[in-house]
């Protein structure tokens, strides 16, 4: 019989940190500039794919680098930092190459339709938006927002992974790593899906009015991740 209360009491710090990781992912997803299907037709600012897919792609790349780092060192700071950097590299490369496509392949300058001036470079935006579209490409504000967002996602994902691996149990190491990584991926998807209801297909980054809705999604993520973390900790700790 598994001592559920005992496991929860012993690993309560792990549960809290896993929940915090989920909250970071949820906040990070709001910052990633996703344009969804319209952006693939250069009809909206941002990267031309779905919220969950892009955030998951970046965050999971971070998880791979974090897993590699965790094999080499026990330092929590290094593991989460490498997860953050891995996700940032993935999103920066994706946005940069996406920008090549918009500029050299489609012939549209990057422009935001949500703000008149780019909040970082102060460049005029509205004049560069082509007729009948909601902007195109990735302006500097969106790029930097995306890098920060993916960094938060990678940070959250690697924190979840690190604290799942801190749970004491009797599993062989390979099985333990397998279960912890699958669970980290699962929690990543949960927290990438919840903000996508807020985003509703497209968001340009921190300067988008939709970004102001983030507290609701962050709260929902807090609740969902907390419950999932309890289940995960009990399942892994009971093995």
């Amino acid at each position, binding site marked *: 019989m598994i001592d559920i209360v005992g496991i929860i009491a012993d690993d309560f710090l792990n549960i809290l940190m896993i929940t915090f990781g989920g909250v970071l992912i949820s906040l990070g997803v709001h910052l990633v500039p996703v344009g969804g299907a319209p952006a693939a037709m250069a009809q909206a600012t941002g990267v031309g794919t779905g919220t969950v897919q892009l955030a998951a792609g970046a965050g999971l790349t971070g998880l791979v680098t974090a897993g590699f780092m965790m094999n080499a060192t026990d330092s929590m700071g290094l593991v989460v930092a*490498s997860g953050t950097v891995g996700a940032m590299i993935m999103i920066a490369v994706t946005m940069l190459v996406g920008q090549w496509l918009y500029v050299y392949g489609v012939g549209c*300058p990057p422009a935001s339709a949500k703000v008149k001036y780019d909040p970082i470079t102060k460049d005029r935006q509205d004049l560069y938006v082509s007729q009948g579209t909601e902007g195109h490409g990735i302006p500097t504000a969106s790029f930097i927002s995306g890098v920060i967002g993916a960094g938060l996602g990678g940070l959250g994902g690697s924190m979840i992974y690190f604290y799942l691996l801190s749970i004491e149990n009797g599993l062989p190491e390979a099985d333990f790593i397998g279960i912890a990584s699958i669970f980290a991926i699962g929690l990543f998807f949960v927290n990438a899906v919840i903000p996508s209801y807020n985003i509703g297909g497209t968001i340009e980054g921190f300067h988008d009015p939709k970004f102001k809705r983030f507290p609701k999604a962050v709260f929902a993520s807090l609740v969902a991740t907390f419950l999932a973390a309890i289940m995960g900790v009990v399942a892994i700790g009971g093995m």
Partner: protein
Amino acid sequence: MEPLTSMGVLALMGAAATIAGASEDLESDVGSQSNPNSQVQLAPQMMYPHRIYNKAVSGEPPSNALMCAIGGTTASVLMTTGASPILALIIGSIVAAAVHGTYSVTSYFGRSASQKRFKQPIYLDLIRSHTPVIMGYAFITTFCILVVSYLMVAVMAHPFSLPLLAFIWGIAVGAIGSSTGDVHYGAEREFQNVEFGSGLNAANSGNIVRKAESGLRNGIDNSWFCAKFGGPATGIAFGMVVFLSGWITVVFDPSISEVMGWESIIAGVAMVLLMVMWNRKIEVDARNAFGPYKSDEEEVAA
């Protein structure tokens, strides 16, 4: 491990990832998958029936993750029975390509049949000509991803298992393909009937180009066009992700000392900053080269 050996392995991984990225994008162009497929799906409803393969098994990341996870699992099981890794990876990729081909055919039939009321025909010759191409690209993508994942597990001693790494890289290659190469297909190739660089007015939705250089346009015509820019660009993007994210820990090996680990983080951040600056340069150059679409009304009024 010897730094020189790990650099060689990393270079091989980067090369395999570049091929995987390019073939992933071209696979999605032949079969028309992911976001640009919304236009192919919409066209018959706007009274533009077409001869383009319409599959869209799912979004690209899940469909590639499925393919790679199937391939990785099959290869992994085969390797535990004592099969050689090369044979195991090839058989795994064949199984994945077969599964993907099955999904492609069923989704083409399903999607086209559901548009009967819009007079969208089902072309049987399209299935015979396109499905092997789709499966071929799927095989190349899966095999290259499996090579990357296998090298990570067997040589770089990554703690994740082969199927899990294949799954993660499948998600990543799909996310990258759908955010980079697909733009070339969705925003340029499908809408070559509007002036280059004029932007795509939402009112044009569904009015995709249906005539080819010769005859009616099909998916293979689209991959021919996208192979000139969208496919290779996707390959470079995925190759860069795999190479750069590994390069920082190979050059600054965290297993030597913790300080080296922090140096690898600094190197990664420096790379990201360089890319921010590069992006800014492209933005400024594009604005100067193309100019605004409309004049400033405030200035005109003054």
